[in-house]
């Protein structure tokens, strides 16, 4: 199978280039994209990418696979490539490339940090723990599962154009995760930090985030909930 892979080493290369490699896929096996990368690395050990858990939990190996962002470790070749076509791997778009498929995620983490992704509760501590009813806990489903792989945020044109101002789908999913948490009581403060023209409202609802999320989450719905809360709080 033909693998076309993005190569760039800022220390030695003037500009990025696509390199073609012929990879032998074992007969009758549907390998994951990460396995193909491992085979490619046997041919050329200088190919560079992040990986860790190899089971879609750590979020390290987010990359652009044949035009769509995804996690290499849980994307089977049969989903990524049509029979007889090449596998094309590029780094996540919209972030500076450190080397080959590795991007600098600083801008992504900076936006994540802005939403204060931790419980804020200034009430006196209870004797044991802050309790939640099963209904209150259920509100966090579809939110807490985010692994911060950045596949959604780096597929969002609004983040490409304003990475320093628009929080992006991953950060906003986490913002709503804490707005929806019954144990958090900083709702007003959190919302007042989001009502400017960029942080939330630069989302134009193109839903690239929903179509690429490897965990099947829906950041656009969370953003809609944040907008509803902003209206109820301010209008």
């Amino acid at each position, binding site marked *: 199978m033909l693998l076309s892979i993005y190569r760039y080493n800022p220390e030695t290369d003037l500009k990025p280039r696509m390199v073609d490699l012929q990879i032998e896929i074992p007969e009758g096996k549907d390998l994951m994209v990460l396995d193909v990368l491992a085979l490619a690395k046997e041919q050329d050990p200088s190919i560079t990418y992040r990986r860790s858990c190899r089971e879609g939990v750590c979020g390290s190996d987010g990359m652009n696979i044949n035009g769509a962002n995804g996690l290499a470790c849980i994307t089977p070749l049969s989903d990524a490539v049509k029979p007889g076509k090449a596998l094309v791997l590029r780094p996540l778009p919209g972030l500076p490339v450190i080397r080959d498929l590795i991007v600098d995620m600083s801008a992504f983490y900076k936006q994540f940090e802005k939403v204060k992704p931790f419980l804020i509760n200034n009430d006196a501590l209870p004797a044991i723990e802050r309790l939640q009813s099963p209904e209150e806990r259920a509100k966090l489903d579809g939110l807490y599962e985010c692994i911060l792989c950045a596949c959604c945020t780096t597929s969002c044109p*609004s983040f490409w*154009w*304003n990475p320093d*101002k628009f929080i992006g789908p991953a950060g906003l999913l986490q913002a709503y995760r804490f707005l929806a948490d019954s144990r958090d009581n900083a709702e007003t403060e959190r919302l*007042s*930090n*989001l*009502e*400017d*023209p*960029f*942080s*939330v*409202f*630069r989302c134009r609802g193109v839903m690239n985030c929903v179509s690429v999320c490897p965990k099947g989450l829906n950041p656009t719905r969370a953003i809609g909930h944040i*907008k509803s809360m*902003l*209206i109820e709080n*301010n*209008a």
Partner: protein
Amino acid sequence: MVSSATNFSRSGLSDWLIQRASAVVLGLYVLVLGWVFVSSPSLEFAEWSLLFDGLSMKIGTSLALLALCAHSWIGMWTVATDYLTKSHFGRHGTSLRLSFLGFCIIVILVYLVWGFQIVWSK
């Protein structure tokens, strides 16, 4: 909280609400005009002029003009802050964006005053 000096409302929520409210006003106005065209297939100038002599049409047209100006300003501001930036145009990005937004303000104000003058001139 991200601030922007060229955003008049300074609030994404206000802009978002104004975009939707103005879209409803423009939609209703287009429906009314559509109904006029459909119900009078051989519309002449005299009939058209008479229609705009009515106070309700003057008020409706004025509201539609205001809605169009607000809607287009927010839209153009959003387009400019997406595409006319330093990341697209280097060090000239900011001056290009400010010039474009200034041009938009002038065009919108001219159309607004001109439109009001036409609607209320008789």
